[in-house]
């Protein structure tokens, strides 16, 4: 029994702004690929895709989601980039008792304070980033930190989680400055950072913001006195900054197109369509949707609760990752990678940017169930 005789999948993400590169149209394309690979059918019913741009506005995302659930009988909601919007969408989905898979959002609140029975946090989260880059950089000797933080849910989470890791690793946080999302000029924030005299400038932001921050830092010669740590960077960011400015930077990610033959194979297909290599998020979009459709296929139903149970019961195992989705809080637990940006001569082919420094086991990367702040977790 499939509601409305179609399986309706919707993705709401940033299609026009700072995060458009790392998910956006590419993400939509990835999902289309997933649907195509299912022959456009699951449980014998047609699969339809709707997508929308939330312009990084939580309210736009929430009302769009609500409208889709109410008027279009949406069955699965995919949350693209931007934590604020994902938090908003999670609430709506929970209210409508429909599965919500957050791909692009970073905030760990999705599986902690704000967890719901219908949320799956799929690709990564700020805790994992902290445990990756944060720990690595501190171990490498970066003891004093100053944060440049995007002023919304994601930035705050990332700063908080990283600070925790840094102090645990014996480092020290000297301060932080918040900047608006999609800020146009970082120089004045950076000057504030500089006067802190910290060794490490932690960039608790993403996408275009990270790129511009790095640029401005170079312009004002801040890179001479401080070392930059991009806490969330994607291959697209490195691509547009160029290896020259990013060489040697650490970053933590859930996936890299060149990490395995399967990954390479899929990425080639993606490249054919989008003329650029996929980011981990776009790969995750594909993987997540496939996982959902398989679940529907298996139980021949798109009923919210049943599908959720099925998805949590079956492990993920594809070119993107090997993951189990935790029943209690909906956290998809899988390995993460600490990557380092290659130097120009190390890079042998286009988009060959990273070398894997270490593989961080899922259990270490993500919040342990014991430490979870999710009210659904019984202690």
């Amino acid at each position, binding site marked *: 029994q499939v509601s409305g005789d179609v399986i309706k999948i919707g993705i709401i993400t940033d*299609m*026009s702004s700072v995060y458009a590169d790392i998910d956006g149209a590419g993400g939509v394309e990835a999902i289309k690929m997933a649907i195509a690979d299912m022959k456009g059918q699951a449980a014998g019913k047609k699969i339809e895709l709707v997508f*929308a*741009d939330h*312009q*990084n*506005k*939580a*309210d*736009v995302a*929430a*009302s769009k989601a*609500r*409208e889709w659930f*109410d*008027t279009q009988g949406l069955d699965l909601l995919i949350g693209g980039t931007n*934590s*604020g919007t994902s*938090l*908003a969408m999670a*609430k709506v989905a929970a209210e409508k008792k429909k599965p919500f898979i957050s791909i692009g959002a970073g905030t760990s609140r999705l599986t902690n304070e704000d967890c719901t029975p219908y949320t799956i946090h799929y690709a990564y989260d700020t805790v994992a980033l902290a445990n990756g880059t944060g720990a690595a950089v501190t171990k490498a000797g970066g003891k004093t930190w100053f944060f440049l933080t995007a*002023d*919304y*849910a994601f930035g705050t989470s990332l700063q908080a989680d990283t600070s925790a890791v840094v102090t645990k690793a014996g480092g020290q946080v000297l301060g932080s400055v918040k900047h*608006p*999302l999609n800020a146009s000029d970082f120089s004045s924030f950076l000057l504030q950072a500089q006067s802190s005299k910290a060794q490490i400038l932690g960039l608790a932001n993403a996408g275009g913001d990270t790129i511009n921050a790095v640029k401005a830092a170079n312009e004002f010669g801040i890179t001479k006195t401080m070392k930059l740590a991009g806490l969330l960077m994607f291959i697209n960011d490195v691509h547009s900054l160029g290896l020259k400015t990013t060489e040697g930077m650490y970053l933590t990610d859930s996936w890299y197109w060149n990490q395995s033959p399967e990954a390479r194979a899929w990425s080639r297909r993606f490249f054919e369509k989008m003329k650029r290599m996929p980011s981990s998020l776009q790969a995750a979009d594909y993987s997540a949707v496939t996982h959902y459709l398989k679940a529907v296929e298996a139980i021949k139903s798109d009923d919210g609760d049943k599908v959720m149970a099925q998805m949590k019961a079956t492990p993920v195992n594809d070119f993107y990752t090997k993951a189990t989705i935790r029943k209690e809080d909906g956290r998809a637990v899988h390995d993460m990678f600490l990557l380092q940006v290659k130097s120009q001569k190390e890079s042998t082919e286009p988009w060959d940017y990273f070398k894997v420094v270490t593989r961080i086991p899922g259990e270490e990367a993500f919040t342990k169930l014991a430490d979870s702040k999710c009210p659904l977790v019984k202690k």
Partner: protein
Amino acid sequence: MNKKPLGYAALFVAVALLPLLGVYPIFVMKVMCYALFACAFNLLIGFTGLLSFGHAAFLGAAAYGAGHALKVWGFPPLLGIAFGTLMAALAGLAFGLLAIRRSGIYFAMITLALAQMLFFYFLQAPFTGGEDGLQSVPRGSLLGIDLENDTALYYLVLAIFVFGFWLIYRTVHSPFGQVLTSIRENEARATSLGYDAARFKLLAFVLSAALAGLAGATKTLVLGFATLTDAIWTTSGLVILMTLVGGMGTMVGPIVGALVIIALENKIGDLGQWLAGVTGIQWFTGLGESVSLVTGLIFIVCVLAFRRGLVGEAGALWERLRKPANAR
């Protein structure tokens, strides 16, 4: 003259029936909120000639005020709305005292700037949740009726809207309204008759702000969140557009305007898709993301071609049609 009340009654019944006809209630409620917002704005521009370019500030102030009261302090719905409205009124008083000192273009610029100031405050103030805004504001229940039920809420919102509209109607057709009209028509003359124009304008401004607040607070209750979008300057522009399209200084114009613009904003994406379909020009698919392009064009057309707005022009047409009739 005496046909008017009937007209309003008919309108009321029609709107009351909508949800039963399967119209998406949230959409209609949203329209009602913006319609009330536009009416409030219109009270100012239409009846004092003051163009406020910062009315979003009042929508926002009330939205956050109500949101906070409902979510954090757990106020009951109506009290929450009242609180939000109060916040807007206070903001209105503060803005008014400053802006009334200049008129015309300066008034517009000043209100715009003050609104921007408030916007930045909201952006940074802890209680607003910054970029994320206030999420999942509870609707609560009224007289034991659970407002989480859209239909129940619908009739509450309708009631609020009718009340707001009635108040505006009253104001316009009151002794105060008479003086306002005279001030708009010829300020120097009104002053020379002993009316302190500034005072009257200020009261009008505060009233308008409060009503805009009522709209904002109600909107928060309906959609369950208050965000920066409520307070940003483009929203101020939007309400001007609604009023302009509907017809400044007309009673129902703003309502029509609000309906048209909101519908447009919702459907423009599909429209773009459709255009792309028929013309085969891919660019149209992006239309959904650039609503402003279309609204801007409407703006220009309205200002150049019909400044009286839909309702205004219709009324003028009607006049022209029956003038010769009763001439004979």
